[in-house]
Structure formats: structure tokens, C-alpha cells
């Protein structure tokens, strides 16, 4: 019987290796899989390349992973947010690399990685510094840049409901990068607010079909990043 549910976040992230490329879902705290990230901090993998829209807040979640010097390089669209201090400090100290990518290009590069499309053309960033060094080409009188897809070894994704096959639904704007990150990773690792019986999720409303998912851990009451940041908590606590 196919059963992708595992018992703990620690078990879910156990095979992440040093040097892995990891996609992490979330737009700010919405959709950020904090429990999986914390388990990854405990697990110890380092020299990671992280693909995520932001760089985390305060000293928890992705920011804590960065603070613990596990991250060699960030690929993201918006590395500074209201409460992000960890990344800016390390970046200005030259201790972490940054590949800055327009948000839509980031999404499309991830989606292409999952879809077997190695490269595509986009109009975004033409005539800007972010297109420097990239091939460009004119189609029907408009200039586009060639962008390569991104694939990951692992994705860490937060979702709402999951079943043993790996079918997922999401909640509101926490959906953001989750579905495409599941497709672009060799192994997509999920934290679900609720695990349900197979068949409970209507086939019409499944957002991520199970084929894209490797394993799932149920985290019934996930922490809120903003609460932890407001309390100035640091992980590990």
C-alpha cells in the first residue's frame, strides 16, 4: 500500500544531504514550513542552496537556518522584509551568496523545472541589470531573455490537507510557491495541517496530485512565524 505519511518532521527531513538544493515554500510567513525548517536545522545539513521568495524573519524558520550558517546561497526575489536582519548582515559581510530573480521569473523557472522544460523566454528584466549576461532574443518585435529552469533535490512545503497518496490542498495565499515547488524537486517533503483518508479530497479540488509528493508529516498546530518574531524567540529554543 502506498503510504507517504511519516511520523515526525525529523524523519521527513532525514535524508537531506550537505550541498543540497532545497526549495522552501512561502511568501513571507504564509506557507512557510517552519516545523520542517526547524527539523532541518536540528538535522544539520549544510552548504545548502535555498530557493525561496524571501529570507525569513527574526531568528526562526528560514532566517534561523541562515543564521546557523547552513546556507551557502539564496535564490530569491525579495531578500529583505520588515523583520529580516539575519540575511542582510551575512550578505553585507560577504558570507552568503545571492541570486536575485524577478518573482514571476522565479515562479516560471521552478514551474519549468518541474515540467521538463529546460529553458524559456520571458520579457521580464529586459534592459535591466538582472538581464545582464543573459542571452536575449527578439520574437515578433519584442525582446525577451532566455531563462533556465531550476530543479531541486528537495522541496519543503506547507499545505492544508494531505492524504496517503500525497494529494494536497492549500489554504488561501499560503498556496503561493508550494504546488510548483512540489513538481520541481526530486523529493517534495510536506507538512500538512491535517492528514485525511484517501478519497476524502474531491479529485476536482486536489491542487497537488500525489505523484509530485515524496513524504508527508502532519503538523496539526504549526507555529506562527510572526508570533515567534514578536516574542523575539530564537530557534533552537
Amino acid at each position, binding site marked *: 500500500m502506498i503510504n507517504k505519511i511519516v511520523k515526525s518532521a525529523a524523519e521527513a527531513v532525514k535524508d537531506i544531504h550537505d550541498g543540497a538544493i532545497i526549495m522552501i515554500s512561502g511568501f513571507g510567513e*504564509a506557507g512557510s514550513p517552519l516545523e520542517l525548517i526547524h527539523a532541518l536545522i536540528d538535522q544539520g545539513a549544510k552548504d545548502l542552496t535555498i530557493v525561496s521568495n524571501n529570507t525569513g524573519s527574526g531568528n526562526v524558520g528560514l532566517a534561523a537556518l541562515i543564521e546557523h550558517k547552513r546556507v551557502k546561497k539564496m535564490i530569491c526575489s525579495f531578500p529583505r522584509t520588515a523583520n529580516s536582519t539575519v540575511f542582510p548582515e551575512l550578505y553585507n559581510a560577504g558570507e552568503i551568496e545571492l541570486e536575485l530573480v524577478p*518573482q*514571476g*521569473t522565479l515562479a516560471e523557472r*521552478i514551474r519549468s523545472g518541474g515540467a521538463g522544460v529546460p529553458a524559456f523566454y520571458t520579457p*521580464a528584466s*529586459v534592459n535591466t541589470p538582472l538581464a545582464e549576461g543573459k542571452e536575449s532574443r527578439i520574437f515578433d518585435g519584442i525582446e525577451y531573455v532566455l531563462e533556465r529552469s531550476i530543479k531541486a533535490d528537495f522541496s519543503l512545503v506547507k499545505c492544508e490537507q494531505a492524504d496517503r497518496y500525497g494529494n494536497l490542498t492549500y489554504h488561501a495565499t499560503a498556496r*503561493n510557491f508550494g504546488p*510548483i515547488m512540489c513538481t520541481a524537486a526530486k523529493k517534495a517533503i510536506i507538512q500538512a495541517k491535517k492528514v485525511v483518508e484517501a478519497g476524502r479530497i474531491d479529485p476536482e479540488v486536489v491542487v497537488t496530485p500525489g505523484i509530485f509528493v515524496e513524504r508527508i508529516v502532519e503538523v496539526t498546530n504549526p507555529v*506562527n512565524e510572526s508570533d515567534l518574531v514578536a516574542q523575539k524567540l530564537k530557534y533552537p529554543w
Partner: protein
Amino acid sequence: MVENQTKIGWSKAEMAQKVALDIPDGSYVNLGIGMPEMVADFVPEGRELIYQTENGLLGMGPVPEAGKEDLELVNAGKKPVTTIPGASFFHHADSFTMIRGGHIDVCVLGAMQVSADGDLANWSTGAANAIPAVGGAMDLVAGVKRIFVITQHNTKDGKAKLVKQCSFPLTGKGVVETIYSNLAIIDVKEEGLFVREMGPNVDFEYLKERTEAEIFR
């Protein structure tokens, strides 16, 4: 600032209102973070606009009542919002299908600089120790049908924001359609920047003095 003595030009609310008046009924609209968000408060009675936020929501409603926030229902500025009846959620690749694919009618953005050719710079000063952050701005200006800029006419220290050539790194080239500043509404045309309307107690000479790019009327 001159504005504290006699009222010269428009307030932020008035600027937002001017933008709102120029958005046709039934438009799909993306509002940038900050001042652009105010536009939603001034949509004229009888018009229905649908707001898209690039983090995955079409049919964004107003800010929720205190205590009713959902931390996973937020806008591009990561602030809590609500949904209207008829809203939909989608992932980022689908969201930028809307944006890049030309399905959004109007995007209202802030600006650091706009050039005489409608080039926009609004994501980075290019300063050596600044943390660069771009978000969805480059996709928006490349894909949305009409780009409106809402901005103070000058920087806090009095520098021109409407310039001959942007000195800051570009967000996009030749993308701006209209600039709504506190001093004037200015259309970017093939032949240059054309003043369509000036704010209270602003005259063309006053405006010219505060504008590095050549302006016409």
C-alpha cells in the same frame, strides 16, 4: 516643506483619487505596496474593479476587522486582506501567467525615478551596500497593459524624480503610461512628458523647476 504654508499640489489621498478616476469600470488591477494601495479607497461609486495580488489571489477585498486577520491570507505587502465573493486562489506560476500574459489591465506602482521615455526605476538605488530586492515589479511592468505611477514629484531632499535618464537601475524600459505626482498628472507620450493636469496652486513654471526631464503642455 512648502506644503505646510499654503497648500500646493495634492495630498496623497487626492493623488490616489486621481488614479482611481482613471481606471475604467470592470478593470483587473494590481496595486503596488504602499501609496498605490490607497487607490482602492477612492474607486467611484458604480465602478467595480477586481484586484489581483501577485502572491496568489484575484478578488482581493479590504483589510479585515481587527481580530479577524488570517496570517495566510495576505497581499503582496504581506498584510492581512480579505476576499470578495467571486475570488480565487492560485499558485505563483498561474499568478504570473495573469501578469506576464497581459491579462491585467492596470498596475499602479511607486517610483524612485521615471525618465522622459517612460523608463521606470523603483527597485534599487544601486548603492553598494543595499540589499537588492525586486519582487514582482519587473514582471508587472513587462506584462500589465497599462502602468500608472503614483509618486511624490520630488524626493524628500528636493531632488527630481522625473529625470532625463534614470540613474538608478531600471525596472523596465518605456513602460510607464501616466505619472500621478502630488504636483501634476503627466502622460508619457512618444514625444515626451505631457502635463495633463496640475494640482492646486501649481503652475507650469513651478512644475518645470521641480522636474529634470523636459515637460510639455
